[in-house]
């Protein structure tokens, strides 16, 4: 059981909330309170747009405990529009080939059950192929 950890991480994990450096404007994810660019203090919350592109990816056939239900699935390095590169599962792919540079967008989904069906359901960000819109955002 990792309930305290889930609770502490929920804001960044549910909604991709990171930080912005007040000194050099660098956008930071995951939040770490120190700017990786200029090494100064950076504690200002920043809501990422959730848009990015696939930087690299791999398919998982032999999943770790808690993820069996979803296997096989694809994990990608996603380069966010604002700069940071993060690791996340891709979803709603359903057979379509993943490509480097593919535009994706963040959605909040079930990540896994903590333990069995009696445990907490863990929610967090994943990325899906960006929805085609008749009108651009």
């Amino acid at each position: 059981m990792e309930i305290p950890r889930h609770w502490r991480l929920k804001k960044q994990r549910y909604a991709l909330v990171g930080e912005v450096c007040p000194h050099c404007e660098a956008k930071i994810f995951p939040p770490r309170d120190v700017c990786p660019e200029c090494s100064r203090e950076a504690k200002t919350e920043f809501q990422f747009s959730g848009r990015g592109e696939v930087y690299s990816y791999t398919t998982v056939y032999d999943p770790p405990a808690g993820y069996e239900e979803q296997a096989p699935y694809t994990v990608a390095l996603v380069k966010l529009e604002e700069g940071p590169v993060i690791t996340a599962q891709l979803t709603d792919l359903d057979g379509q080939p993943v490509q480097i540079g593919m535009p994706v967008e963040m959605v909040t989904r079930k990540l896994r059950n903590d333990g069995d069906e009696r445990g907490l359901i863990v929610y967090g960000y994943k990325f899906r192929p960006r929805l085609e819109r008749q009108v651009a955002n």
Partner: protein
Amino acid sequence: MDQQPLPQHPQHLLLKPAQAVGIIGYGAYVPRYRLPASEVARIWTGGEGGTPIKEKSVPGVDEDVITMSIEASRNALKRAGIPAAALRAVWVGSESHPYAVKPTSTIVAEAIGVSPNTQAADWEFACKAGTEAVVAAMGLVGSKMAEYALAIGMDTAQGRPGDALEYTAGAGGAAFVIGPAEQSLAIIQAAYSYVTDTPDFWRRAYQKYPEHGQRFTGEPAYFEHITQSARTLMEANGTTPADYKYAVFHQPNTKFPQRVAGMLGFTKEQIAPGLLVPVIGNTYAGAALIGLTAILDIAEPGDRLLVSSFGSGAGSDTFDLLVTEAILERRDRATKTQEYITRRTVIDYATYARMRGKLVMK
């Protein structure tokens, strides 16, 4: 059935807040998977007999009422153009809340950025839970206790394998930011609720699938409650079906809403844009509300709309809405309902059984 006589002054029955309210933003969500009704028929009846719809939407393995409510709410907030933290209530109506004890609404509120200065609660009234939340939001905003409230109707309903409900039990719904009328893209001019104790459909605690009271599902339940609710609202309002550009009724299958529209005097054209059940199935607490989102996606300023939900047990809420100029600029800010419906991946029964946890693994 008999139309019961209305009281002397039916306008007193209308729900109208002290301050006029309306929809500031709306958002829909439909998962991408579709199970054709012909697949269900292939498994259980050898493909014999007609089917009540063409296909239904099925949630992915990582989706539930919480994740779907989050996406619909983000769409509603984009259209509303207000910061999430301005909401003072997050109310989710559903009969498929993921937890038996632990609110759906607190997780949704946290994920969309409303927490912690807010009310949060889950509403239950079978398929009427979503519109019940809308009426409550009207009260909260209309009394000026809050400027904005979020009301959601969302479901991932399940039918027992082989049961008639398995053809239609779909997944989807909608979220609405309710606020002052002057900021609205559709003013809610009035609402009316009609409720009785009717044994048409139920699910006991710890049971996975619902039961239905056979002959009680049609006439005494669905048709009686919707006609009473819609007729009373129109009578009290002094309107007739001809005053409405579009209407949407709760849609457990294709025939029921078509027939109730005919009984009330609405045309096929009036209900066409909101009749989504043939292509996404019955989305229960989301059904009437997602129909409304499809209408708002195409409505013009000045259009008057009628919305009637139905929930087993039983009751119906009817709303009278007036679309404003704000619709033209706001509806393009988020994914439209038909865009979600067109995004579709057809699955077979085996994939469906795996995705919906119908296979016993241990």
